């Protein structure tokens, strides 16, 4: 019996060693990124690029929402907090109380596109109409000069930075109707809208694809050009927050300044966001 148990243990150890043998040499540094699901694609793409250039770094990205990203940074649980909104005063206070000094890096500009199912004949909408729909004043598309179809309102959870931006730029203090269905990420939002005829939702620019139809807002289409010039009304910067400015020459510094390089800008454009500087 003893030998059996010993051999089992040996087997387990062997497995463990075998697993680690499969991986490459130890990564000397790690960068832990947490936060916004909107900034997620940028962070993931940057991570892929940075790890290809510098295989000694292990960069992990999680997408749990801007609010959770901020909390993780405050608790020292991540190196970079992706955020699709600026930090709030109380978050700053909490951070400073814990000795964390958040520094913002604006990595890209994003517009929040109002999306509907492609079969919806609406092509344009006004900010007031969006507000009416999200307040629950308009419940049928025909009330906003659309087809006779019940509106299915899709919103975001409160940890979302996209939600906060939408709240301040579109709702302007009005409350979102309680019947709205809240989802946890941009990807989920798109999936809900692409599978529901009467749905309306909002996502970052990088999440628009063939399966949903972005509406013009106040006559302006949500595309890179209009967002870059500031004409599109629901636009916001996307941030990466670090604790203090990262030490020069570190992988962390290289990572948060990647957006300034031509390669970084190409990545951002390729994903569908607007680079901060356009050459």
């Amino acid at each position, binding site marked *: 019996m003893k030998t059996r148990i010993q051999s089992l243990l040996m087997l387990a150890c062997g497995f463990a060693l075998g697993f680690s043998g499969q991986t490459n040499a130890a990564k000397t540094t790690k960068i832990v990124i947490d936060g916004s699901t909107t900034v997620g694609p940028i962070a993931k793409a940057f991570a892929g690029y940075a790890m290809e250039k510098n295989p000694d770094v292990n960069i992990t990205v999680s997408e749990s929402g801007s609010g959770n990203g901020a909390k993780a940074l405050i608790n020292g649980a991540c190196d970079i907090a992706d955020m699709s909104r600026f930090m709030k005063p109380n978050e700053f206070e909490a951070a400073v109380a814990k000795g964390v000094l958040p520094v913002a890096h604006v990595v890209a500009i994003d517009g929040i596109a109002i999306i509907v199912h492609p079969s919806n004949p609406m092509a344009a909408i006004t900010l007031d109409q969006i507000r009416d729909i999200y307040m629950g004043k308009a419940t049928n598309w025909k009330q906003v000069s659309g087809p006779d179809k019940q509106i299915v309102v899709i919103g975001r959870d409160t940890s979302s930075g996209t939600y906060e931006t939408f709240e301040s730029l579109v709702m302007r203090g009005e409350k979102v109707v309680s019947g709205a269905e809240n989802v946890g990420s941009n990807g989920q939002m798109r999936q809900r809208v692409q599978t529901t005829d009467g749905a309306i939702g909002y996502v970052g620019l990088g999440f628009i694809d*063939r399966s949903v139809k972005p509406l013009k807002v106040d006559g302006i289409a949500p595309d890179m050009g209009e967002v870059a010039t500031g004409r599109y009304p629901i636009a916001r910067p996307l941030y990466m927050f670090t604790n203090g400015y990262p030490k020069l020459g570190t992988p962390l510094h290289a990572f948060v300044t990647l957006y300034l390089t031509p390669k970084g800008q190409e990545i951002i454009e390729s994903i569908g966001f607007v680079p901060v500087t356009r050459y």
Partner: protein
Amino acid sequence: MQLATRKLLDRTFTGVGLLAVGLVAVALVAMLGPIITRGLGAFVFQETIEHRRFLLERFGRGDRSEIEAEWAEAQVAREAIHGRITQFESELRKLDWDQRQQYAGPLRDLKDVLHELLGPFPDEPKPVMPRDQYGPTRWDRAQVALEHVLFIEEYDYSDPTQMGKKVLIPRANQFIGTSLAPLFGELETNLDKMLLPRRTFYWRFLFDESVDAHLFGGIWPEVLGTLYLTLGAIVFAVPMGVISAIYLVEYARPESRLVGLLRTCISTLAGVPSIVFGLFGLAFFINTVHVSQSKSVLAGSLTLAILILPLIIRASEEAIRAVPATYKEAALSLGAGRWRTVVTVLLPAALPGILTGIVISMGRAAGETAPIIFTAAVSVGQPLALWEAFSQPSPALPWNIYNLCTEHEAVDAIRHVQYGMVFALLALVLMLNGLAIVLRARIAKRLRG
């Protein structure tokens, strides 16, 4: 009761029982069928030359000269397409402004969808993102991309009071009478020569790192993360669980109120929703005890360990209790102490039951999502070496299945990866359960013999 009625009742019960078993079987097939067939699609599929190129350039695998020859062949086949685009562009320059404007938009769209079908054109600089560097790696994705080149998906909004109806308009309609018109027919007939699809068994899907957020490569970081988390949970939970069970059965006074309370607590622990464990893990292990600075496999393992602890305690308790009292009495009568009796008689006899409990809880730990969201799991990361697992987070199968289904920016393009992950997770849990059955049978046989 009359005999006839009794028989009737008996038969009815048998019938209902059979029906229930049948329904379960149907449900199982309906669920497992797609999981297995689609999951295998991640391993066995028609790979295009783009996939072979990717494997060669990224992982240095494959016969270089052969792939280069194939690539040259594919390039020759694509030349006609690229040639037509270049020719059309030079023709456009000769046209006047209005006509040029008429074609500018459609041409831009056409080039976009062609990029999706064939990757970058030969005269273009190499893009930074792998997703832009290669065309579709799978023939089924290539078919979808071809559909997008050949047809424009539009909606008929002729009645503004109703929802539109989907109509497919051939893209060729936009280029009638131009030199681009034959391009679409050529694409349709020659696509296989441009992409050279070939059936492949990509078993390394399990062992390859993912590239460009799962759009390419395999799922090794996830598989490894799951194995670490599961083994870690077992390492922490088994000693604690088995020792608690021994205490509860052998040492604690059964009539004691404290023990009763303890038992109730353990049962309650087993019923706590797993997300609560996740939040507890975040609040306790990471934010309070600081077992690691950030999320880490260690914190996740500890959280999972608490989750499976009641399962292990219960299973071990039952197993120890099931050992016939005569064993214990014999040992005690021979003068063995309590501890010696437990270690040399009770534990070995209870081992099959304990092991089964352990392996079943391993399956549970491998499949749990909620406890690791806040404590261990990330969307992308590299496979970790064993010592790195103490301080670093890792992707893990259950969480990444969810992440790919809901949060990923290109969900539809990577369905096969999702199915592959589900298949891998299922296979892992099935293997663990199989192991439990075999172990149990072997040990039980040994004890009897």
